[in-house]
């Protein structure tokens, strides 16, 4: 156990949470913990590029239940590293952007740090069991955050989000256990690295699959439903908008920005590599559902009249793109999906942060109450605009790079010799729907921006003050992250690619490919 760094990543926020609960200056303590964690994550990222045969770095393990080969095994590949970075960045920003907490401040920040620790734990776990368990660490803090410090219909929302997610994660647990049991008894282990190795070895030796092919379909479906509920896959999405609307700002940021990504991360980490045939078998179902996410939820978003719900629904909608990348079943689309995890995490955190500030300053989230705020809140409008453009996939922001990869990956996924548009494969039709979704998202986002920041300033709004100095840098961090990755996505793509590559099926050649 010489590599304690990843444990530290989990322990720092936990320790911070305890200190925040007991100490006096909770905000400072948690900012310190979150900042230290971010610094550690950056250091680890910096050390990540050293050449190595092992895709998983910084490995360490603590045995927990030897009988089941259960151990607290941690390690990160590129994907994990990126998720850790996302989690730490958003945590710092969320803590810094927390509104003033008058009631039980310590508990508030402790809850935030708990969620953060849970996310990070899930991202670094290489053991199926703890991978699952860490995610659940966020459940009760979310309930408390919404219930105690929430807005509007906080109680109903707290119930809904908690029960729905509990149900979802239970289904997920069943799926994971089913996966475990479907592995031939002599190979059974929760250790993902061993499972990967076995899978690769079996594929090489006999072309066989670790999990029997006939079982893969329904296990994948179970995992998809479980993860799907956590990701707010259509039609299991209704918890998300209300939950995010009711949650205090930093909770929404962490939840929508990081925690929700756990499901997708899980699909990438567990379901797709270990159940390739299952993924293939279920792809049609997934396509239908993700079109639901993109088009149906997109339309629902247009119909929203409150900013918080609108942002909530829009974050649901964008999950559809990530699913599209996953469904492409190839390295391009899945890298895109992975990148979009990161990009969407940052952008949605920024959006929710703006929403929270507006709510705090103006006591309303109804779009019709707003207007002309660009005059009094120029900085906020600038940041919101950038986050908004990022989220609708404007080039220059990471979201665009990711969506581009997703579209390319999905469109070129199948062996292709299209003769007419009517020869499109289902996946290609889905891409079409996805592209239309880009239009839809522009419609509602610009509509919202127009309502809130443009037009005349209504008399009812007493010209609210702009961002304070302390509120500025988190936005800068988030936007800068989006821009840097957006300008040169390979910064992250090249890091995450190796982790995804070995699990992909060979790519079929196509007609008419230019010779190079």
């Amino acid at each position, binding site marked *: 156990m010489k590599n304690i760094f990843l444990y530290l990543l989990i322990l720092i926020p936990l320790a911070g949470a305890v200190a925040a609960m007991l100490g006096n200056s909770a905000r400072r303590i948690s900012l310190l913990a979150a900042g230290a964690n971010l610094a550690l994550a950056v250091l680890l990222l910096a050390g990540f590029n050293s050449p190595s045969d092992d895709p998983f770095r910084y490995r360490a393990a603590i045995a*927990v239940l030897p009988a089941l080969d259960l151990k607290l095994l941690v390690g990160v590949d590129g994907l994990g590293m990126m998720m850790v970075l996302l989690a730490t960045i958003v945590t710092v920003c969320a803590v810094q952007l927390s509104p003033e907490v008058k009631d039980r401040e310590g*508990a508030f920040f402790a809850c935030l740090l708990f969620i953060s620790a849970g996310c990070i734990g899930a991202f670094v776990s290489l053991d199926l069991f703890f991978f699952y368990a860490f995610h659940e*660490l966020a459940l009760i803090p979310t309930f408390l955050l919404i*219930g*105690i410090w929430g807005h509007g219909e906080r109680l109903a929302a707290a*119930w809904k989000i*908690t029960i729905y997610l*509990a149900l979802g994660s239970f289904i997920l647990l069943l799926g994971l*256990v089913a996966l475990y049991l479907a592995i031939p008894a002599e190979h059974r282990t929760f250790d993902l690295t061993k499972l990967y190795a076995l899978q690769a070895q079996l594929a090489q030796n006999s072309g066989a699959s670790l999990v029997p092919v006939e079982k893969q379909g329904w296990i994948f479906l179970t995992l998809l439903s479980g993860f799907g509920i956590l990701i707010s896959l259509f039609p299991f999405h209704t918890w998300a908008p209300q939950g995010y609307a009711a949650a205090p700002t930093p909770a929404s940021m962490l939840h929508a920005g990081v925690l929700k990504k756990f499901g997708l991360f899980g699909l990438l980490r567990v379901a797709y590599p270990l159940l390739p045939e299952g993924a293939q078998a279920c792809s049609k179902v997934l396509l239908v559902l993700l079109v639901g996410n993109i088009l149906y939820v997109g339309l629902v978003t247009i119909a929203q009249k409150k900013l918080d719900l609108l942002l909530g629904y829009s974050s649901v909608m964008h999950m559809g793109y990530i699913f599209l990348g996953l469904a492409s079943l190839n390295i391009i689309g899945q890298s895109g999906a992975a990148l979009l995890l990161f990009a969407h995490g940052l952008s949605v955190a920024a959006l929710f942060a703006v929403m929270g500030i507006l709510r705090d300053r103006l006591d309303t989230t109804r779009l019709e109450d707003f207007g002309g705020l660009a005059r009094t809140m120029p900085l906020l409008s600038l940041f919101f605009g950038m986050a908004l453009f990022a989220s609708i996939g404007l080039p220059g922001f990471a979201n665009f790079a990711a969506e581009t990869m997703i579209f390319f990956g999905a469109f070129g996924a199948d062996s292709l010799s299209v003769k007419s548009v009517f020869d499109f494969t289902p996946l290609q039709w889905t891409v079409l729907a996805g592209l239309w979704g880009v239009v839809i998202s522009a419609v509602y986002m610009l509509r919202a921006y127009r309502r809130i920041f443009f037009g005349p300033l209504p008399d009812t709004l007493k010209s609210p003050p702009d961002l304070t100095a302390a509120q500025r840098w988190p936005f800068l961090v988030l936007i800068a992250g989006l821009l840097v990755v957006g300008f040169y996505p390979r910064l992250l793509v090249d890091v995450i690619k190796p982790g995804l590559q070995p699990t992909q099926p060979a790519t079929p050649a196509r007609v008419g490919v230019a010779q190079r």
Partner: protein
Amino acid sequence: MNPIYLEASVVVFGLVLLMAEAFLPRVDKRTFGWLGVAGLLLVLVLSFFVTAPTEAAPWQRFYAFDSAAMFYKRFALVTTILVLVMAVEYVPTLQKYLASATPGAGVGEFLCLPIFACAGLMWMASAIDFAMIFVSLELVTISFYILVTYTRRNPNSLEAGVKYLILGALSTGFLVYGITWVYGLTGHTSLAKIGPALLALQGQDTAIFFSFALILVGLGFKVAAVPFQLWVPDVYQGAPTPVTAFLSVGSKAAGFIVLLRVLDVFLGVPAIVGKIGLTLVVGAAATLIYGNFAAMPQVNFKRLLAYSSIAHAGYLLVAITSVLPHPGSTNPPVPFGETIAFYLAGYLLMTLLSFIIVIVVANQSPGDDIAHFNGLSRRSPFLAFALLIAMASLAGVPFTVGFFGKFFVFASALAGGQWLLIGIGALSVACGFYYYLKVVRAMYFQPVAAGADAAIELGGPTKAIIALLAGLILFLGIFPAPALDLYHASVKPAVALAK
């Protein structure tokens, strides 16, 4: 030391305490509670030093000292120790409801009776003969009749006692009749001999299942399985809280160990395995549904915990079903003993933690409704946080022992291919989150009721025990191995048995 001395020392210790209490009227009654705790602790320690006897003795026909028996003995001891702690904490309430002319009268007996019940529980853990099962179970049951009714100035307590009495006696009737029939079929009461004798019977599966069903009625009552669970909510609500805790943990665990031993015998008869399987599956499904769904509208905390206790019986039954052979799966039947033992260990920690807190809070509040926990996070952040951990564990949140319990249960159910139960289990878990978090909502979201906002005082030892329990819940939630090792720790022979 011979394991049989464990129970003997508990009984003797109980007697000594009873005498001491009678002859030392001036000593604060609570002292006897702490003395009881100390004595049982001593027995608990002793239990790690027992060795198997070197030669066969007649009592070995009745009495097993395998690892399971030892585990459940220790389980009973720990439960009783904690119940005694609760009882000491409960003394103020107790005195309010006792018909005592002098302060402290009747308290001593209240503190001694659990010790005798503990002996009964320990005997049950070892019972491998129906005669032994019957008498030890009755010792426990009759102790509980008394304990439930103990605060007889409290009409609820009385009512609970009467209900428990009638239904308990009814279930005893069925148990006895079942034992009679088993005896009639095989000519034996010893489990070890019944098994082969049942196999030797030809074409008698109707009668075999008939007698099994009657015994199952008696044991189903103990473990609170549907449809023999109806007493649970009323009795739990009415009984003095330490007794409720004792019932829900000790009595249930003892019921389960007996059920497991009996099931082991009857599952050896291939002709009735199908019917047993059907019974268990339907029973588990009904218990899950009843316990979880009916818990949702509850407003009284103890009643809520009663339904929760039914729900957990359902989960435990689910674990049992995994042993059933099932077509279409290559997985061998999963041995459930370990799962159930671990689940019950976790259940002990979280349930007793909840009940201790109920006692402490109810002592300083108007009652024990969930509404009386409103704003507990302000009155005592420590208690609120501890109860939060207990509730999270009961609901099955990871990194609590409750999660590992559920994990093992559902893993074995999946391995056994029990799809119906898994589906119902999923819904149950969701319901569970609702009603356990209802308590969290009360503690954290609701404002303190006017006039009941005094900070809650908490004695040092009690506080330490609460912290210990909460800590154990978390520790076993991350490292479950110690509890499982305990289950597998068998009694070492003093000298190698020449058998």
